[in-house]
């Protein structure tokens, strides 16, 4: 099982992911935004990062790019429900262009998440 860093600003969604991944026996570390996510990534050296795209302070796209600069082999899964005028598809397409291993449009099922994790950890 993997050590997964979750970067997500929505408290409920974050808590849901923590429980879901813990039930699947993954080790989980959480961050509320990109900046915190980068700090945790340096400290805990996760096997995989699952990050939201639209977040305060540092958004997911910048976070993914910085993570790649620091460790180009670290696999990342991007997820987005979109917000206001920015659609989830647009966010995930942007994430796809900077090399994420999988993209999840919110809301997704547990199976979708498990598949994305398997795909990212190959």
């Amino acid at each position, binding site marked *: 099982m993997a050590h997964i860093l979750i970067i997500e600003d929505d408290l409920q*969604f974050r*808590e849901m992911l923590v429980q879901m991944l813990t039930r699947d026996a993954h080790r989980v570390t959480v961050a509320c935004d990109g900046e915190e996510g980068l700090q945790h990534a340096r400290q805990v050296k996760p096997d995989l990062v699952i990050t939201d795209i639209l977040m305060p302070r540092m958004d997911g796209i910048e976070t993914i790019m910085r993570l790649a600069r620091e460790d180009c082999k670290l696999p990342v899964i991007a997820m987005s429900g979109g917000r*206001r005028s920015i659609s989830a598809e647009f966010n995930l397409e942007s994430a796809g262009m900077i090399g994420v291993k999988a993209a999840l449009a919110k809301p997704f099922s547990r199976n979708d998440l498990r598949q994305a994790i398997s795909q990212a950890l190959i």
Partner: protein
Amino acid sequence: MKQTSIKQEAERYYRDSVERLFQANPTLDFEQVADCLTTSLLDASMAYGLIFREHADRHLQTLLETRITQSQKLEAVGTLAAGIAHDFNNLLGSIIGFAEMAGDDFPEDSLGKSNILQILAASFRARDLVARILTSSRQTQAKLEPIEIVSQVRESLALVGVSYKPDLLINFDAGIEHAVVMADPGQIQQIMMNLCINAADAMNHKGEIFVRIDSAQLDSGPGKGKPGICLLVVDSGHGMTPEVQERMFDPFFTTKALDKGSGLGLSVVHGIVTQLGGVIGVQSRYDGCDRGTEFRVYLPLSDGQNSH
């Protein structure tokens, strides 16, 4: 007849006035008296015309302002719908995730498990609905691509139908199973939504709307002579007068109450159909017998495609 008698009466007043003025002013000749009266009448007429024009201008200005506000309101509603839809995705994500985990804590075949499955089924339906709302409120440039129109129409009708159940049903009959046209899926959704909303309003949201799709030959418009499809939307509502039919595609023209219609629905449909090289026709009668309205939208098939 009545107008003629008023005119005669006015002429009589005019003659009497000239005569009275002529007798009261013996120093003036008849022509001078007649001129005095005609000049003052012309002045009055011009003043009246001016007042009338100012009034008409003010009225027009008010109408324009109302319409601009309505159009801004529509835009705001679209943006709001998109914002809410996206926030719903985040909320639904939590609901689905927690519900799936809660389901793990119940034995299979238990009532608890079954209830959780109902929550999940409803949440996934809500997810689909949000996706449709997003599609219909998307304000992007239309991207024309070959799309299979029968399934697109069916999907659009499912969205409209949800809003009107159970008093109003949409009966879809597909005379063909497959046809490809060049369009943006959102445009087809707009056409179906606007035609069905008008049909539903004409029927006070009760009864049955018939929608049929068939193959057809275009006999007018830029696609004249090309093979195409015909989309038929028939209601049994109050119908439209010839005057309304004449103006129904005008932007902002509406017969609905101010808070019920923007007057943009049919003009949007007309704009889309024209952009896609198609034509739209209507048959309607308004005689108090609810004979209904029938819209026919003809769209050309994508080049080299056949319908079947």
